[in-house]
């Protein structure tokens, strides 16, 4: 188990995750990131009508190093 931090960037401004989440490994962190993006982008009736093209979510470790970067536009609804 390790702490992972999920920062969201809109191409201009950063929303930093200061809390972090305890997860098993980077694969679990990636799966978690995908769900977070789905929750931000989607609702039951479909995608929120917004321009997500520049939005990314990055996964960081305790030292702040970036381990993975995902584009919102690569995430499809669950």
């Amino acid at each position, binding site marked *: 188990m390790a702490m992972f931090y*999920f920062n*969201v960037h*809109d191409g201009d*401004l950063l*929303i*930093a*995750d*200061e*809390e972090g*989440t305890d997860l098993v490994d980077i694969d679990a962190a990636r799966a*978690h990131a995908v*769900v*977070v993006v789905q*929750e*931000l982008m*989607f*609702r*039951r*009736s*479909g995608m*929120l*009508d*917004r321009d997500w093209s520049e939005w990314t979510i990055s996964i960081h470790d305790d030292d702040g190093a970036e381990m993975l970067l995902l584009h919102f536009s690569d995430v499809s609804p669950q």
Partner: protein
Amino acid sequence: MDTYVESHQDNQLLAALTPNAIALMRPDLRSISLKQGHELYDPGDDIDQIYFPQSGLLSLVVVTKDGRFFETSAVGRDGAVGLQAGLGPRRSFTRATVQIAGKFSVIPADRFASIVQDDRTLRDLISRYIEVLWAEAQQIAACNAGHDASARLCRWLLQCADRIGLDLVELTQEFLAQMLGARRTTVTLLAKSLQEQGVIKYRRGRIQILDRERLKHFACECYHVMQSGKTGLTTITQSSFAHGDVLFQRTRR
């Protein structure tokens, strides 16, 4: 000054009772303090007491098989839990817990039921309250299906604040996430964005609403619908998505 009655008056249902009804209830109505996390009912439990919050917040949730919690209702000064037991023996459908600590007026269900038989206005109160709860449940179901996490979070924060009568809501992000059916990270990111915009201010377990108007702007219309006590289903469509957007309408303070 009769402080015994004064504190019960903090609950809006009790405050609306006729003098005759309150006189019938007073001998059996007590004021108690309950801590956060105190469990009132599990599904299937007999309802043995009716709880009327004076302060604090009760939450009713459905717990699914995989252990997740889903909000069905949050009850503060505006309502009661177990009121239907005034019509006869009843069981709880949901898990009811104290979500924010506070003071509660309580009355044993069997005593309340026998009082209700003697007072028509109490029977009316119960019917009307159950109708309001039903309308709210319909609205919440539509909201959970059709609205996004950020709009629902804003609605929920406003409703909590209204129901406890304070702009300081003592709830953790973990709890909010459970109530919204979202990941805690999602709540953290949305809360961070709201804080950066000066709408709220939070630290562990405490969320202070700073800009109520902006929070209303970001909340879905369900907040306004439920506040005005309207009944019936609202059609949630793309065109009704007219409220503001926490992530896309950010202004820095």
